């Protein structure tokens, strides 16, 4: 059925490791969620998932794609390419004598991303393969000092030789990254031009990347890694996104696919800096939570996203999420601004084992992923996963798992839990499975509490949003007793990251390091210099942002530019990022306004008393964000009805094990519940994409925005 007065406008795609979710929204805010198992061919999985979603509306891809105005993609293919080291063979040109720094990974990369025990355990430390092999690395004599002065002029004949060798060796891209190039990029640019010349002479058309053109920021390992990713991982993704875009165009799509980027905005798939989209799925959820909270007028949100493999948490304080300047991903330090998140490697699909010495349960760190657990024999998993326990205890419906696309073997799961967990621990099957769930809930609860209290807040200041495929199953467990103001579970929890992607602005962000310091002893002339330096940086970044939008067909006057900066009290290690109170600066007197905004931000993030203006102020980085208006999904608004669900919403009952006993849980069909309906536990609310568990001692009601409120009674 196609409704022309209420067209389908927005599509969000979250191509995760386990599932590919699609999220379609009509103009009035109604939506459907589609799921398909992820596929090596991402375009294919997206189409399958779209078909699944649109079946709910009895319509087809061919009918809907032409109506749509916005499509945002987030996926894991680029990340997998990096983790599996299956990228483009890339040559690296560095300052002579520094050929090894890339593979030394700042010494930190040997344990980055490890669990705490493994960080301590030297035996597990290990360097991954460098992105550029040492044999594909060349040094060129040159040196720029820490103030940007040229100490040794660049020897271009060496660069010429290096380029020729790298191309002859079979490199498919060349990256140039010199020491301190963010302060003075002339050497890098000169070498880039020479490489371009050599490449032409040799009849080659490989891409060439100079770090100064992409990420002109301090810390050469971060900068080099990030520029390398642009060649190594993002180049192949351009091809895949182009294929996805073509496949959608074949079905009549008229929109341009955008990609979720780590800074929380979306960028065109033709973007120059595509490496920014390396990790995007979990960020989509945070952006979605912020958008939803703005609509609901909630200031402080604790975001919790539980998927099959991980639990991601983020805080939104006074409607702002924090940014990490140097995010790390895939065990690489990077110069990418990244929405600050805490992640632990425990999810709804984590493996469960027993420590033979302490005889205690151990979750993860690995998980069954798309192979689900022992309950799905075709998945080939022999180790019990959390999902197996859910199936045994009646939390999940084995006949309607992921809408029934997988056929589950419950007796096999029972046998495995019995053999691997229950018998060794001397427990009954149910108690063993329940112990696993309790342990997971406890560990998630502790991490959530630790994340909030470590930042100096209390859960009672926050509303908790719970989403992700496993969010509604675990929400009661990991929020129990923490004292959140409220726990909210969107009916579209399973597609929430995809939803979030669709709410993100079309926004490019560029960063540049600056070395500006002003103390009480500085003169007006010093302040004027500082202002000039900052504005020069903004001008350079503006040109880059406008260029990105030009590639996507937007004129400069359509772009809203937001300059920002990172400031610190001189001598402190941490800086804070903020939007500039002034669109541009030219006069020394404006310095005080920049400082004023920093002082306020500092007092908000830390405390009034912690301010230290006597130290002086430094600007460590200039930031420029440019955005254009996009169509965003609206939140549904429905009138609230009766507290008692309609008889048609009740689909039966099921034995459910909670608190050491079997009880009978009422089963509801999620889509049949209407706003105002109230459900008291024990109950299980099922939909194709997710299952919402309301145990004894809890109740829930559905509001007019199709958000479930979970209440401890």
């Amino acid at each position, binding site marked *: 059925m196609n409704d022309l007065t209420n067209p389908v406008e927005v599509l969000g795609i979250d191509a995760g490791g386990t599932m590919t979710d699609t999220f379609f929204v009509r103009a009035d805010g109604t939506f459907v969620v589609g799921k398909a198992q992820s596929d090596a061919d991402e375009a294919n999985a997206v189409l399958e998932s779209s078909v699944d979603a649109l079946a709910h509306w009895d319509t087809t891809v061919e009918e809907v794609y032409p109506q749509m105005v916005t499509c945002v993609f987030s996926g894991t293919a680029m990340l997998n390419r990096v983790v599996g080291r299956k990228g483009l063979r890339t040559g690296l040109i560095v300052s002579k004598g520094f050929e090894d720094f890339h593979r030394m990974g700042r010494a930190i990369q040997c344990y980055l991303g490890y669990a705490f025990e*493994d960080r301590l355990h030297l035996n*597990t430390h290990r360097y991954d393969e460098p992105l550029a092999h040492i044999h594909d690395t060349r040094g060129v004599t040159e040196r720029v000092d820490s103030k940007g002065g040229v100490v040794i002029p660049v020897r271009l004949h060496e660069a010429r030789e290096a380029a020729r060798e790298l191309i002859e060796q079979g490199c498919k891209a060349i990256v140039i990254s010199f020491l301190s190039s963010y302060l003075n990029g002339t050497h890098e640019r000169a070498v880039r031009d020479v490489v371009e010349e050599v490449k032409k002479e040799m009849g080659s058309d490989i891409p060439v990347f100079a770090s100064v053109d992409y990420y002109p920021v301090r810390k050469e390992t971060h900068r080099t890694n990030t520029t390398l990713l642009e060649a190594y991982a993002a180049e192949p993704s351009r091809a895949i996104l182009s294929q996805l875009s073509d496949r959608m165009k074949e079905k009549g799509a008229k929109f341009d696919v955008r990609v979720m980027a780590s800074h929380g905005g979306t960028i065109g798939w033709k973007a120059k800096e595509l490496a920014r989209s390396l990790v995007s799925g979990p960020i989509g959820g945070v952006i979605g939570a912020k958008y939803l909270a703005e609509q609901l007028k909630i200031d402080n949100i604790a975001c919790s996203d539980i998927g099959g493999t991980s639990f991601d948490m983020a805080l939104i304080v006074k409607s702002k999420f924090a940014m990490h300047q140097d995010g790390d991903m895939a065990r690489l330090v990077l110069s990418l601004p990244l929405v600050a998140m805490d992640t632990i490697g425990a999810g709804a699909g984590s493996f469960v*084992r*027993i*420590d*033979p010495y302490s005889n205690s349960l*151990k979750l993860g760190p690995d998980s069954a992923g798309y192979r689900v657990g022992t309950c799905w024999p075709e998945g080939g998993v022999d180790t019990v996963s959390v999902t197996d326990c859910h199936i045994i205890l009646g939390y999940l419906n084995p006949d309607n798992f992921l809408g029934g696309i997988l056929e589950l073997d419950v007796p096999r799961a029972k046998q495995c839990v019995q053999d691997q967990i229950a018998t*060794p621990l001397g427990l009954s099957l149910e108690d063993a499975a329940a112990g696993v769930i309790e342990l997971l809930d406890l560990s998630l609860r502790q991490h959530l509490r630790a994340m909030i209290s470590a930042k100096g807040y209390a859960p009672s200041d926050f509303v908790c949003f719970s989403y992700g495929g496993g969010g509604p199953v675990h929400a009661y467990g990991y929020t129990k007793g923490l004292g959140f103001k409220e726990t909210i579970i969107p009916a579209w929890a399973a597609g929430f990251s995809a939803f979030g992607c669709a709410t993100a602005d079309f926004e490019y962000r560029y960063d540049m390091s600056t070395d500006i310091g002003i103390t009480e002893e500085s003169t007006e002339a010093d302040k004027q210099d500082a202002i000039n330096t900052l504005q020069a940086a903004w001008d350079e970044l503006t040109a880059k942002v406008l260029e990105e939008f030009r590639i996507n067909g937007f004129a400069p006057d359509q772009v809203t530019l937001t300059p920002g900066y990172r400031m610190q009290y001189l001598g402190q290690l941490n800086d804070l990022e903020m939007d500039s109170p002034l669109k541009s600066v030219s006069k020394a007197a404006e310095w005080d306004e920049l400082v004023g905004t920093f002082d306020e931000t500092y007092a908000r993030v830390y405390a009034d008393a912690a301010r230290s203006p006597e130290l002086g102020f430094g600007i460590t980085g200039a930031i420029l964000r440019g955005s254009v208006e996009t169509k965003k999904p609206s939140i549904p608004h429905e009138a609230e009805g009766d507290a008692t669900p309609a008889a048609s919403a009740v689909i039966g009952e099921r034995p459910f094990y909670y608190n050491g006993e079997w009880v009978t849980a009422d089963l509801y069909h999620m889509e049949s519940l209407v706003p105002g309906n109230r459900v008291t536990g024990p109950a299980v609310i099922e939909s194709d994409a997710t299952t919402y568990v309301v145990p004894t001692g809890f109740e829930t009601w559905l509001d007019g925005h199709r958000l479930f409120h979970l209440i401890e009674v």
Partner: protein
Amino acid sequence: MSSTYTKKQVADLVKGDLDFETVHLMLSMPKDEDRYKFYMETINENLDYDHQAIGALGPHLNYVIRSDDEEIVVMCDCGHDFGQYRSNWKLNAVIYVRDNVEKMEQIYPAIMAPDTTWQVYREYYCPSCGIQHCVEAPTPWYPVMHDLQPDFATFYEWMGQPAPAKI
């Protein structure tokens, strides 16, 4: 609980044939019951002498039960006997000390080696086959280091197995 890893996997671990993902998991997770048994079986199968290895001390150096008198000794893969395990095997090795610039420059480029008045390298070799078993990098006056003094009695108790006769 039975072993999670097979003898073949443990043998591959010793050989260095496993992918790091698996090695990482084997290192991080609690050791399964049969690990020691499989590990030592693998080591013993690769040794040419007829003494029984009961612990690894280096890539080519093991604690073994000497077949003639059941004493636990440290032994090179070539069969060279470094003596009873409670004393330091290094004192019975051939020792080469790099304690001047010339010796350091054999292994490092000029000025990239330590100042030998602060740090020297002591290399320990097998007197029979000449294989290098260990290198230590102490200050020049520091005594020969005794790297490990295993408590076999407790170890076998933890394992729930009878200990060798002459511990």
